[in-house]
């Protein structure tokens, strides 16, 4: 297998190098890629969509249809992880472990034994459980709100600086993932229930596709945000800018929820127990 792999890799490499010979030079301003379509995007974006970040404008307006499906791809990734891994009817372990939050003492409850009353003093833990590190826990607790704030900024400011729905969404998702890693998955799931993930994820895509469909209902083509002008009471160009913001929010919501959903399923292999 190793030799076959090497042969295939070398053959493919040789083919690609053969094709590379006729490429225009690297970073050549006169190459077809830089002269055919991109001048239009660079020179007209400001007039046509009023968004200074050209990448955002092309992403969410000129090629918004691509981006809609890109959001759909990650949504379907989330659904696939869920359908593959999630175990609903799991076998309960014989002994359940509970930890007294205030003292840190661990209680073992035998199978069939009485479960402690539903109070906040006890939390369910697994045999793999290790005590939390105080420093990590505290620092992460402090950091998470700032990370989330930054994520929101990245989504909202995607028109003027690098960033946008994806990056912001991933950062928001990462803040919850950090909570899950620094404490445990149960704590993170208490903050963000599985059902919330599973509902937010399609909702985000729905915001995106729904905006497009709204344009369609308003009489223009799918995804033609200038149709929103009559709803938002602005001129068509500003309507495009606003349309981009709306779909970026949709992307952010979808990506955040899906990233958390995938992480939850992967890190607990679908059992939603202690996590990492």
């Amino acid at each position, binding site marked *: 297998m190793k030799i076959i792999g090497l042969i295939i890799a070398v053959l493919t490499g040789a083919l690609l190098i053969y094709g590379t010979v006729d490429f225009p030079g690297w970073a050549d301003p006169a190459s077809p890629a830089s002269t055919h379509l991109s001048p239009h995007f660079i020179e007209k974006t400001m007039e046509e969509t009023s968004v200074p970040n050209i990448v955002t404008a092309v992403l969410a307006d000129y090629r918004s249809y691509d981006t809609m499906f890109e959001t759909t791809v990650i949504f379907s990734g989330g659904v696939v992880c869920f359908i593959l891994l999630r175990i609903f009817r799991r076998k309960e372990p014989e002994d359940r472990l509970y930890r007294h939050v205030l003292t840190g003492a661990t209680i073992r409850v035998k199978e069939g034994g009485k479960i402690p009353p539903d109070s906040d003093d006890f939390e369910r833990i697994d045999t793999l459980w290790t005590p939390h590190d105080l420093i990590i826990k505290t620092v992460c607790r402090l950091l998470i709100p700032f990370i989330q704030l930054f994520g929101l900024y990245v989504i909202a400011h995607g028109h003027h600086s690098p960033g946008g729905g*994806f990056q912001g969404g991933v950062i928001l998702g990462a803040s919850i*993932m950090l909570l899950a890693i620094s404490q445990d998955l149960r704590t993170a799931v208490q903050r963000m229930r599985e059902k919330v993930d599973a509902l937010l994820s399609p909702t985000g895509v729905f915001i995106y596709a729904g905006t497009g469909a709204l344009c369609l209902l308003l009489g223009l083509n799918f995804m033609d945000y200038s149709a929103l002008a009559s709803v938002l009471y602005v001129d068509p160009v500003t309507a495009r800018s606003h349309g981009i913001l709306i779909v970026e929010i949709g992307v952010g919501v979808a990506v955040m929820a899906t990233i958390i959903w995938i992480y939850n399923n*992967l890190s607990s292999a679908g059992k939603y127990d202690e996590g990492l």
Partner: protein
Amino acid sequence: MIWQLDLAILTLVVIAGIGAITVKDLLGAAILFGAYSFMMCLLWSIMGAVDVSFTEASVGAGASTVFFVAAVFRTTRRTKD
């Protein structure tokens, strides 16, 4: 664009890539993959693709690495090659 920096990082990317597939420990491979992604992200920001490198920094070096680590913890670190 500073071409010396470009060359240096390109070389590092290749080293990290080879490392990720040869190291005999899956957790190590996951972390080296994170390093590889981060080098890539630096490389792209040198080339002026700020949005792409931002995404790669958050998705590739961040979320993907965490996914790898999660999967390795749920399976095994052992590998024969």
